[in-house]
């Protein structure tokens, strides 16, 4: 336990150093980077993904996965657009969009918690199915012309320079950190992620915890979908397609183990900041989209590989030293 904990501390330290490196590099090499407007942009351009990354952290620490989040984002945005087009007031349409997300979450939870199917299968079906539902609603239309207040929420600053989505992100971040790192529920999430059986023997209600998490996941995703719709001012069937892999990448780079039980929101927060700043810096340096994803791919691998290699080198060095010491003693 002790060693695992120190490993984590080291990981987050590593991420922090990397972040500083990226920020300094950008600041020195890219004009226009160190402006308030750019920093707001840098968050705004991916704000929906990082909101969902918060709840995805819970899911992955719990040793599960939710591949359906991007499709749920699409479903909620399209539900809202469809109802608004049908004449429903925007407030109610948005609420129904959110409820569509809750419904998707309950559906996922049922198959995972009650029937006991693996979350990978359930949410993979959800990835296809919820996207299908979104298309069923909007078909080949693009629905826009939302009320001005709605677009303003997505596109204009709300408090100071901060738009609504950023405020939502920071509020959720604080909540998530309190719940995951400092509450009993958070401890259950880790315990279950470490070993379902141990958790069950210890009296943790494993299924219930999982079901709560999957409903929460879809609900947050639905909220993110609505925010995305407000930022773009229009919805289409393909809205948010493919976001799931970016979101999972953020969580994994944050040091959350895909096998569950370890990782923290601090790490995820750092990884989010690294990815956003890296993308922004590369974008401002006019690197193409492919190179950006490629570099993040390299970073993802290196961030785990480098510490592992270092520890291997250290271990072999220690072995070597032990052997020479041994030799010295006997000799």
């Amino acid at each position: 336990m002790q060693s695992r904990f120190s490993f984590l501390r080291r990981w987050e330290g590593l991420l922090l150093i990397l972040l500083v490196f990226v920020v300094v590099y950008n600041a020195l090499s890219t004009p226009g980077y160190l402006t308030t407007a750019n920093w707001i942009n840098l968050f705004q351009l991916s704000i929906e993904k990082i909101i969902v990354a918060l709840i995805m952290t819970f899911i992955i620490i719990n040793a599960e996965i939710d591949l359906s989040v991007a499709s749920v984002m699409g479903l909620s945005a399209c539900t809202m657009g469809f109802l608004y087009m049908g004449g429903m007031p925007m407030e109610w349409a948005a609420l129904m969009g959110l409820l569509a997300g809750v419904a998707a979450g309950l559906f996922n939870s049922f198959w995972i918690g009650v029937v006991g199917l693996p979350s990978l299968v359930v949410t993979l079906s959800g990835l296809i199915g919820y996207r299908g539902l979104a298309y069923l609603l909007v078909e080949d239309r693009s629905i826009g012309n939302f009320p001005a207040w709605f677009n303003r929420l997505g596109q204009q600053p709300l408090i100071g320079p901060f738009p609504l989505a950023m405020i939502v992100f920071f509020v959720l971040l604080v909540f998530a950190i309190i719940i995951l790192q400092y509450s009993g529920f958070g401890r259950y999430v880790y315990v279950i992620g470490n070993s379902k059986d141990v958790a069950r023997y210890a009296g943790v209600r494993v299924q219930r915890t999982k079901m709560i998490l999957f409903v929460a996941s879809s609900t947050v995703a639905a909220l993110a979908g609505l925010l995305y719709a407000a930022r773009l001012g229009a919805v289409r069937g393909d809205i948010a397609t493919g976001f799931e892999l970016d979101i999972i990448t953020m969580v994994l780079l944050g040091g959350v183990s895909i096998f569950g039980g370890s990782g923290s929101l601090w790490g995820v927060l750092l990884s989010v900041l690294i990815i956003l700043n890296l993308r922004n810096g590369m974008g401002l340096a006019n690197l193409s989209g492919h190179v950006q994803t490629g570099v993040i791919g390299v970073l993802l691998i290196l961030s785990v590989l480098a510490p592992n290699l270092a520890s291997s080198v250290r271990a072999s060095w220690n072995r070597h030293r032990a052997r020479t010491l041994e030799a010295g003693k006997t000799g």
Partner: protein
Amino acid sequence: MFKQSLKGLSLLLIFSVLLAACAPAVAPAPQAAAPEAAATEAPAEAPAAEGEGVPMVLMPKFLGILVFDQAYQGALEAHNEIGNPAQLQFLGPTPENSVAGQIEILTNATTQGVKAIMISNNAGDQIAPAAKAAREAGMTVVTWDSPIPSAEGEQVFVAQVDFDETGTVMADMARSILGEDGGKFAVLSASPDAANQNAWIAALQRVLEQPEYANLELLEIVYGNDQSEDSYNQALALVDKYPDMELIMAPTTVGIAAAAKAMQDEGLCDQVKVSGLGLPAEMLEFTLNGCAPEFALWSFVDLGYLAYHVAYKLATGELQGVEGETFEAGRMGSYTIEKDPTREAGLRVLMGPFTVYDASNVEAAAQ
């Protein structure tokens, strides 16, 4: 304790070396571009003085597709002819991240002080807020190939062809392939979200209502999502679903090629023909062997060339971007900014015309 931090430091060193080693290795070209981008930053603050040049960006729907590269060739040709001392960047997102990526590039361009951007819009109206923000920051926003449907945030759309004419051209090709007594056909489109394809298909449907096309029957519209696999399977499914179908009309380069290959593989070319919008190089084989006897397209090189002229002239104030203005676009001659009949609020510059390819001219165009 000291040792611990020493280890941390060495790790950081390894990391930064690795990172530094990777970044330029993956993309050597933009490294050279960086100082120039920095140099153009200075005039961005001062009002664009004459002779300082206009930094411009050409943005395709996504990278890796031949026609967009052809458009870049055309834009580069205009760039060199005009002698704009600033840089012309060709920046695009990845195919799987097209919508978010286009918005990101547009927003970053605003931050960088780029003066004019030319967008082949793949995000529909979703790009409008970012385009409006760019306009407010003083950037010239021109669309080409695919417009912003609401025209919000866009000054002028450089249209490859008249979107209504696309419907007529497709209907005419269908009539020419099916013969005077007409027949049944289906449309294999890109994705349901593709604004261009949707507009063209809508135009086709309007044309079909006219009496002289009464013997053409459109059975169904299906989507292949611009993926070879989906398009190939959809084409065969159409054949199975409608035994009396004689033609598949695919207004997308990926769809038409995949459908033609499917008909060829299954030996169906005598029974079902393929037509639509395609690239001569990709369609060569199928046109010569009769699977796709006729298809149409326009020149993407010319489109890029014209888009550059429009964007440059708007950015330098030579054009104001109002209806009725006339200008000279280098080797392509004289054009007029006019109301876009297919979009209420939009202005357009119409390039045209279509080239219809068949066995007689496809080989020359495929080179």
